[in-house]
């Protein structure tokens, strides 16, 4: 799964980033050094420039017609100046010498006295490309894109007469970034990101339910068509809606919970991942703070954050500070072994950056964020896991989750779940919200399947108002007890 692209090509990426981001504003790599010097004011110990340009395209089908299409161009430069724990930040939607000087002076105003440090000479480190540096929007004509959406509509409507509404969307982003920092960092990346989504409403006997499915990753839109996602996600969305039409009210109370493989890994994202981000641990505000080297999960539980997976939605060849994306073990066999770090928090904690610095755009400050977070497989046979439960819940898909990293409490809402009765999966249930405490829940993991799967590429993680694409994954997992928030007490 960790296969790199065959030809490392930092130079090509760099040339393309320079041509795309710098040349139009009359800048070159030397003028970036000049720009960076503005941000390295008195007392500033680190500064960086983040240049970005993105092209976002979106097509939406409703009522069998593609009625909406939109195109968005965004771009600019974000300038940070740091002094100890202090950060000054300014940005501009122009990438020009004036913008660099203005934003640099503004950011440097975070401190007003101290030594003036220089900018280290450019140092381009070898980078392994985790995805092809391409424009994912080209290579498929507008007519082809529309045809894909219409295919999804036809397939969904043909799948079952109960389907009354179908909407489908195709979106893609072509993003070019260039990072230059006072520590010598110079790194470029071209990040494609595409996604296809289908949502249906099915109605029967006065009941209405929704079903949805989708996926994508860091590759060309044309691959979505080659892989037949329009048909696949249309059928999957209908299947889910039909299951929900049969669903009974969920139980309320504490029961054993079996989570299916793939997307239910959102549990790890909420229950473990956020609590292991460097900023919360440096500030001591995470329930996991100060627990490095301690047992925080059952034996057998190994959780990693992995930016290196080929073509995955959460992958990054380099992060938004120019650090190469990495594979970081967070929990190994139940023991806390790693935090996710950006440069600021790594430095303040005396650790090394882990390539987890991410930002929504040039107009946002980077923070430690997850990439693709998943649990490694165990030895159990999924059927045995189900058979081991007398009365419990089997949850296979989720709408979304949230965590309070200080108390460790997390919540996530099932969009497809079933009762387990006497070791068999029986009636589908609706409205099941699961709630628990991160470290506690991880200590109740009692069986781990051999069927590790990654999600299809739909995750968006929000933190302090910034959204970034992420991936999750896990094998089938059994938690001995978790609170299910249904209505049937």
């Amino acid at each position, binding site marked *: 799964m960790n296969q790199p692209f065959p030809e490392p090509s930092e130079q090509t990426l760099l040339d393309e980033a320079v041509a795309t981001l710098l040349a139009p504003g009359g800048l070159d790599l030397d003028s970036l050094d000049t720009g960076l010097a503005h941000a390295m004011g008195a007392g500033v110990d680190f500064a960086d420039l983040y240049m970005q340009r993105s092209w976002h395209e979106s097509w939406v089908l409703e009522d069998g017609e593609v009625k909406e299409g939109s195109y*968005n161009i965004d771009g600019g430069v974000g300038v940070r100046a740091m002094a100890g724990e202090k950060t000054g930040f300014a940005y501009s939607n122009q990438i020009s010498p004036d913008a660099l000087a203005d934003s640099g002076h503004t950011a440097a105003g975070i401190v007003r006295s101290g030594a003036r440090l220089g900018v280290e000479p450019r140092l381009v480190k070898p980078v392994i490309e985790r995805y092809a540096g391409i424009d994912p929007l080209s290579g498929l004509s507008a007519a082809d894109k529309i045809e894909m959406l219409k295919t999804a509509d036809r397939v969904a409507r043909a799948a079952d007469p109960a389907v009354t509404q179908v909407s489908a969307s195709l979106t893609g982003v072509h993003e070019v970034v260039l990072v230059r920092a006072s520590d010598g960092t110079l790194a470029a990346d071209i990040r494609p990101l595409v996604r296809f989504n289908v949502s249906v*409403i099915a109605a029967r006997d006065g009941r209405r339910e929704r079903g949805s499915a989708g996926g994508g990753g860091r590759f060309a839109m044309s691959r979505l068509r080659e892989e037949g996602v329009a048909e696949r996600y249309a059928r999957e969305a209908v299947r889910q809606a039909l299951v929900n039409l049969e669903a009974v009210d969920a139980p309320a109370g504490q029961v054993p919970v079996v989570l299916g493989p793939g997307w239910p890994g959102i549990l790890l994202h909420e229950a473990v991942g956020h609590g292991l981000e460097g900023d919360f641990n440096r500030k001591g505000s995470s329930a996991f703070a100060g627990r490095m080297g301690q047992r925080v999960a059952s034996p057998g539980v190994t959780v990693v954050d992995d930016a290196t997976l080929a073509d995955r939605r959460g992958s990054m060849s380099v992060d938004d500070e120019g650090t190469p994306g990495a594979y970081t073990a967070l929990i190994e066999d139940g023991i806390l072994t790693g935090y996710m770090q950006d440069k600021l928090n790594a430095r303040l904690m005396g650790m090394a950056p882990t390539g987890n610095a991410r930002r929504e755009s040039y107009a946002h400050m980077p923070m430690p964020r997850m990439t693709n977070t998943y649990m490694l497989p165990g030895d159990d046979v999924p059927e045995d896991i189900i058979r081991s439960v007398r009365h419990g819940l089997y949850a296979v898909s989720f709408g979304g989750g949230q965590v309070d990293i200080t108390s460790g409490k997390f919540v996530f809402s099932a969009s497809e779940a079933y009762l387990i009765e006497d070791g068999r999966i029986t009636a589908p249930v609706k409205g099941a919200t699961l709630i628990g405490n991160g470290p506690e829940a991880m200590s109740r993991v009692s069986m781990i399947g051999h069927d590790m799967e990654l999600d299809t590429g739909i995750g968006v993680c929000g933190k302090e108002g910034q959204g970034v694409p992420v991936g999750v994954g896990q094998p089938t997992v059994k938690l001995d007890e978790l609170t299910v928030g249904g209505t049937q007490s």
Partner: protein
Amino acid sequence: MTQAFDAAAQQALLESRAEAALDQARRLGADACEVGASVDQGVDVSVRLGEVESIELSRDQGIAVTVYVGKRKGSASSSDAGEASIRAAVEQAMAIAHYTGDDPASGLADAALMAKEIPDLDVHHPWPLTTDEAINHALACETAGREVAGISNSDGASFSSGEGVRVYANSHGFLGSQRGSQHSLSCVLIAEDHQGMQRDYDYTSERDPRKLREPAEVGVSAAERALSRLGATRPVTGRMPVMFDPRLASGLIGHLMSAIAGGALYRQASFLCDGLGQSLFPEWFTLKEVPREPGAIASSAFDNDGVYTRDNVFIENGRLASYMLSAYSARRLGMETTGNAGGARNLRLQAPLESRESLLTKMGSGVFVTELMGQGVNGVTGDYSRGAAGFWVEDGKLQHPVEEFTIAGNLRDMFAGLMGVGDDTDTRGSIHSGSWLIEEMTVAGS
């Protein structure tokens, strides 16, 4: 260190750019066109443990163009409202309209409905404060909170102040623009005991800085909220009354508004499809919109279609009196727009208000919920199940904090089971409401 912002000049510039975009769309063959543009500028300061953590100067702009060719539509937007970017956006929108399909409901709102006059709604109160003053506000807030006994850590205090201009124009000849400002202060504090840590926050946010709460009061309140959560237990599982604090009650009104929004209705993605005229709430409950209330957070004289805004009554004596519609969703439903393109602006309740004590007495025993987590609201079915934290109530009195439980029900039942509204109205957001007491929900805890 703050940058100068000449709102009048920015407004004139955006207006001329919007008109240029309309001209260009006409020249390129668009039958109709609409343009939205905005510029916002501000400062955002955060402090933690008595030290400045970050200072951020923001300046965002954007322009969005939608063109109509016959019944086809195309849209494009850019984060740069410069002339070249606008030209490119119009060309992109035209290119897209070449591929999209016919939509009989597409097009601008009727010309006769455009807002005729744009009164000053008293929403622009710029605050020319220095960065040091901004820092001092945040520091005063955090310091006061940290001085409260039992506060062990801080996630910091943030102060932000900004102003901006937004313009909407369309090929009916309508051009509306409005300046606005917003100033906010928030604080997150952490309390700790042998059982672990608890965090909570408080904030104040206003268009007019003179109305902001005192920084120290916000900090102390955040501290008290965090402290009050220490020692939380899990409530027992069962069916019982649930009271929502004012902020969370506003969220319930938000779910109602999502369900009566035209977009959800024509997509059949609402549990209130065909709900018009139905009795949803007790007879004593009325919910209205006052989009032109002077000084209010969401006030505007025109909606996102350029249509004049008017007072709407959505719930009248318990009945669903009106949906919330834009020009497009109204056409889809064969109805008239309610001037709600872009959503509801300033919602207010009309109901007999009671003291919190009186509501708690009415409740007897149950839970008073002060925080909700997760996204467990299904707009299609009205099914509601969310993570919660708050206080256990017995004999009409708060007993002790509770956490790690869920509350579940169906929004229809919850609305019908509304037993009372508190006089503890939260006026910070666009929806003003006091606490809500709901007759019965399922609590899942231990």
